């Protein structure tokens, strides 16, 4: 019975209210620190490293059961899917050839105009392991983290367009804020006329919004919005959203536009992190001395 602690006869500790207020003060301090500064990221990553293996172990039997269920798929279904994927692959191959040619032409033109080359990106595929349980945020956790070289701030895409951005990195996982998160904004360009606006999330997966739109801005339903790339975070030309409707100003000096995300925000399990390629300034190096000479 020695292991069951009993109330001590003579109390030699702080009273309950005193201890309580101490803990509350620590909590409020932590809250303020975490809300305003990012000093606790290391501590969070450390605790997450403790929790993550357990989480993975818990998810493993479920994944295994899904794997077993997937094993019993009929031959016909597999054959049909195989044929469909082959067709899709052929289309993609054709599109890829086109894209390579255009990219080569583009880089030649940029070199001709002495513009720095566009930053290149490579893809790191990942899978959603968990949806975040924060009632205020639209976030997911993916199974790629600092161990795979992920850095907070990198964009996340799927096959159809932009999905979100890596906002927190843990040792083996990372938190991705989806486009639909209220605190998430993406600088985009209207494909039709090059108008630059910022698309923000509003907490629902179906609609994004352009919050402060000029009253006379030329944005029409059906317009496609692509990343403009001027923020240095998202590469240019990733499809983001299609304008669904624009609303004239009501009680505010600004109009508002509702858009539909093109990427599967909150729909698919697989996504890819865009890893910026190390800046290879190979075509620039010979140019720089030449330009200096010209200046001299």
């Amino acid at each position, binding site marked *: *019975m020695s*292991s*069951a*602690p*009993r*109330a001590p006869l003579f109390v030699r500790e702080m009273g*309950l209210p005193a*201890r*309580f207020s101490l*803990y*509350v003060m*620590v*909590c*409020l*301090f*932590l*809250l303020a*620190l*975490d*809300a305003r500064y990012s000093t*606790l990221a290391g*501590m*969070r990553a450390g*605790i*997450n490293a403790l*929790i993550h293996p*357990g*989480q993975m172990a*818990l*998810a493993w039997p*479920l994944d295994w059961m899904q794997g077993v269920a997937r094993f019993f798929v009929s031959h016909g279904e597999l054959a049909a899917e195989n044929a469909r994927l082959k067709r899709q692959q052929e289309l993609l191959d054709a599109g890829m050839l086109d894209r390579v040619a255009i990219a080569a032409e583009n880089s030649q033109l940029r070199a001709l105009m002495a513009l720095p080359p566009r930053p290149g990106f490579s893809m790191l595929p990942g899978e959603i*392991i*968990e*949806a*975040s*349980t*924060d*009632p*205020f*945020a639209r*976030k997911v*956790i993916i199974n790629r983290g600092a161990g795979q070289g992920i850095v907070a701030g990198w964009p996340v895409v799927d096959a159809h367009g932009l999905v979100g951005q890596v906002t*927190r990195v843990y040792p083996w996982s990372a*938190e991705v804020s989806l486009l639909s998160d*209220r*605190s998430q904004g993406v600088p985009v360009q209207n494909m039709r006329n090059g108008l630059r606006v910022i698309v923000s999330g509003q*907490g629902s997966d179906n609609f994004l919004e352009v919050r402060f739109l000029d009253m006379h801005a030329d944005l029409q339903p059906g317009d496609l919005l692509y990343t403009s790339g001027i923020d240095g975070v998202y590469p240019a030309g990733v499809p983001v959203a299609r304008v669904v409707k624009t609303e004239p100003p009501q009680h505010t000096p600004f109009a508002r536009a509702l858009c539909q995300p093109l990427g599967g925000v*909150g729909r698919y399990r697989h996504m890819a992190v865009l890893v910026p390629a190390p800046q290879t300034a190979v075509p620039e190096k010979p140019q720089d001395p030449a330009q200096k000479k010209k200046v001299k």
Partner: protein
Amino acid sequence: MILPPLLPQGAELAHPPTRAKVYLSLLLAFVLTLLPWMEQIRWLVPDFTLMVLLYWNIRAPRIAALGAAFSLGLLTDVARGVLFGLNALAYCIATFIVLLLQRRLEGFDTPRQTLQISPILIGKEMLVLALGLMMGRGDADWRWLVAGVVAALLWSPLAWLLDRVTSQAPASQQPTL
């Protein structure tokens, strides 16, 4: 002549709540919240950790009190990816209230306990939402309050289960003073 104690004392319980039992059950409850719940029903999942914590604070108030509430809260904060200290604060407040009312809650049978505990369980979800609103994080998703209601509904099964763990006679069958 020595009078026998009116209430069963620690040694008379077949399996008194020990540190190991309390911490193991708290760990199990925390693991239960870590399970990969489907996103569609995520807002229905109650805070098992808080429920077990409050249960032990009623039954064995000296084992897992404010310190445990604070550490479990921080763990939950990380697992949920919310601001540091949010759940820790909520757990500490809930534990404090339960410890203040501990003498009263201990004597009640489970249905009456549920009535007393449910405002705390629902209030915790409210507090988390209210703190988020205060910090200007946008519109609250009020569906998450349902988790508190579910927790209140699950209180009696949980109390029954943990009573079995300590072989505690239901409170109503205990001799009263």
